[in-house]
């Protein structure tokens, strides 16, 4: 089959541009069919290099099948499908095209066997996701999309530099496990980490995603950070520097989400928290930890997509995004509230949900490696997930005080997408075998033991108790929270404005002395040599005749003498 030799992501990327040409049922069929076709193609690609080409003396492998890549490509395809159902009736064609290009290039990364192919898809992803944000059509979305693009262009430059240095020193463009022993690999790591939302540049996630449209944020929540998790998993498994970075992200997400008022921004901070668990697991690097990371990425995309769908449904119906304006919506949006709550208990890793069978592997791996502090922090962070996302999000949006809003239930297609993902959250939790079968290493882990059930119920329910006991301290405020983005949203522009205001006169002052001396010299020259200077004066004909007369007279006298 000719098509099986091509990268499966190309189907989404190329097919996306047909969307604006179609209308009605044909368009629906295309929008829903493309992700399914992509999923089918993902599973036709066997392990190993399927397509090879030479480019500038380097061997490119645009299609290379692997277990981890297939797992990520599978969940990316499922996410595109559910996102397409969710966006089907409401999203602009521009947003759908951009989202599919974005999703297709993320799938392209998971099959890239070399760094050059990886880089090309990486950059298409940055452009596609920027347009997804921009497609919301508001001024704040436009500004956020430009800040987002700048961060990702910076990440792309770091990655490009790293790839060039790495390829230059090793002579090979192959993408595989790397050692952190050269400038090139450090820069590659930095490029990957920027997309993962690692410090100091974590703020782009919470800055940009909540500015997208309801469906745009659903797509955005899935691909960029998880593609970064995939590349870190392949290239830097066991790199111990990732453990503190991941722990920082897990705790950062909790604290910022606790302080946040915007419902979808709470979920965006929660992405950093969840990716933090994954980055920590990659740093631990044992087979159990890496299985846990892959499983958790899979489960996370589904329940985080579901949470963004629920928040998006509320935004779509009420036009409101702040917890201070919301509350009590379970009365008229019961299905959205129910599906959102399923997503919330899944992210909290409640037993019989997908989070329970995936995240616990990472915690267990830390225990087996005797990483005491890591284990205690991860366990605290697990309790904190329930606190900041598991209860806080559904509580402030769907319950708490009655906001007086009585919006209609989310549109049918949005409900269908949420029902599909809510089903998957519970299905994978009750029956994890299909997920475990996709993991990169053989699974010996057994999630359902009496000890694990008891300890998880204790941890989460007492975290819940803490939430309701501390509720008076968690009253929502109409605030935002400063982050490192302050450096480029406030500090940088202020420095530039100050330099313009005070720097320009100071600079002029500094230059005035030499400039005056220079002007004096030029002025002097001008006075003597300028158009009116004595040396440039045009001589009157009379004086010329006079001087000719004098010369002729002198000549005559000389001749007579």
């Amino acid at each position, binding site marked *: 089959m000719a098509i099986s030799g091509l990268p499966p992501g190309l189907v989404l990327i190329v097919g996306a541009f047909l969307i604006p040409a179609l209308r009605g049922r044909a368009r629906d069929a295309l929008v829903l069919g493309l992700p399914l076709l992509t999923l089918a193609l993902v599973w036709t690609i066997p392990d190993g290099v399927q397509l090879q080409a030479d480019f500038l003396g380097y061997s490119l492998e645009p299609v290379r099948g692997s277990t981890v890549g297939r797992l990520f490509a599978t969940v990316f395809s499922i996410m595109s499908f559910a996102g397409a159902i969710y966006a089907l009736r409401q999203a602009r064609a521009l947003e759908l095209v951009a989202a599919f290009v974005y999703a297709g290039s993320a799938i392209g990364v998971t099959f890239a066997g070399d760094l050059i192919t990886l880089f090309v898809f990486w950059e298409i992803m940055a452009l596609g996701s920027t347009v997804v944000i921009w497609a919301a059509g508001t001024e*704040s979305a436009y500004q956020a999309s430009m800040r987002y693009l700048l961060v990702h262009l910076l990440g792309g430059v770091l990655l490009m530099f790293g790839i060039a240095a790495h390829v230059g020193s090793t002579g090979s463009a192959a993408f595989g496990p790397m050692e952190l022993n050269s400038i090139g690999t450090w820069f590659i790591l930095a490029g990957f980490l920027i997309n993962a939302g690692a410090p100091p540049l974590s703020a782009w996630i919470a800055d940009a995603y909540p500015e997208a449209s309801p469906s745009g944020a659903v797509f955005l929540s899935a691909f960029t950070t998880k593609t970064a998790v995939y590349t870190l998993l392949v290239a830097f498994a066991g790199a111990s520097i990732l453990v503190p970075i991941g722990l920082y992200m897990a705790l950062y997400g*909790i*604290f910022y989400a*606790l*302080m946040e*008022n915007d419902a979808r921004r709470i979920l965006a901070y929660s992405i950093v928290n969840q990716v933090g668990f994954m980055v920590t697991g990659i740093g631990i690097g044992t087979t159990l930890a890496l299985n846990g990371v892959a499983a958790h990425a899979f489960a996370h995309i589904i329940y985080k997509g579901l949470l963004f769908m629920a928040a998006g449904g509320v935004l779509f119906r009420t036009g409101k995004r*702040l917890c201070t304006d919301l509350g*009590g919506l*379970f*009365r*008229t949006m019961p299905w959205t509230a129910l599906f959102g709550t399923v997503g919330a208990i899944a992210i909290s890793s409640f037993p019989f949900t997908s989070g329970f069978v995936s995240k616990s592997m990472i915690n267990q791996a830390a*225990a*087996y490696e*005797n990483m*005491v502090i890591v*284990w205690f922090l991860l*366990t*605290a962070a697990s*309790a*904190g997930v329930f*606190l900041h996302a598991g209860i806080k999000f559904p509580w402030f949006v769907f319950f708490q005080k*009655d906001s*007086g*809003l*009585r*919006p*209609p239930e989310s549109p049918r297609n949005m409900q269908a997408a949420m029902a599909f993902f809510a089903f998957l959250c519970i299905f994978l939790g009750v029956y994890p075998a299909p997920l475990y079968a996709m993991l990169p290493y053989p699974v010996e882990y057994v999630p359902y033991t*009496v*000890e694990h059930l*008891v*300890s*998880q*119920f*204790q*941890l*989460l*329910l*007492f*975290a*819940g*108790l*803490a*939430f309701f*006991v*501390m509720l008076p*301290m*968690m009253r929502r*405020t*109409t*605030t*935002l*929270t*400063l*982050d490192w983005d302050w450096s480029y*949203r*406030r500090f940088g522009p202020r420095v530039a404005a100050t330099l313009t205001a005070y720097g320009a006169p100071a600079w002029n002052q500094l230059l005035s002395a030499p400039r005056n001396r220079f002007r004096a010299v030029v002025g002097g020259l001008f006075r003597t040599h300028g158009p009116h200077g004595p040396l440039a004066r045009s001589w009157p004909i009379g004086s010329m005749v006079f001087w000719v007369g004098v010369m002729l007279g002198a000549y005559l006298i000389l001749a007579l003498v």
Partner: protein
Amino acid sequence: MNQRDVRAEPDHWLVRPGTIRILWIVFIAILILTVVPDFVVHQHEEFGIEATFGFYAWYGFITCVAMVVIAKLLGFLIKRKDTYYGD
């Protein structure tokens, strides 16, 4: 739909004070139930402390209280009005 007078409607059964009292009683009963098995079930001991009685219960509670308090204190330092960036 948004315009109808919600103050005239009777409270939803889920938010009536009686229901909330029952929910609290059920919740506390479940909390106790989760700690009871610690008399018989022994957690795998990796570091010692997590095998002590009710470890996950008090650890979950205390860390969450601590996180809320820290977030509150951090808020005094880095929270700004949401018009800070000039929206």
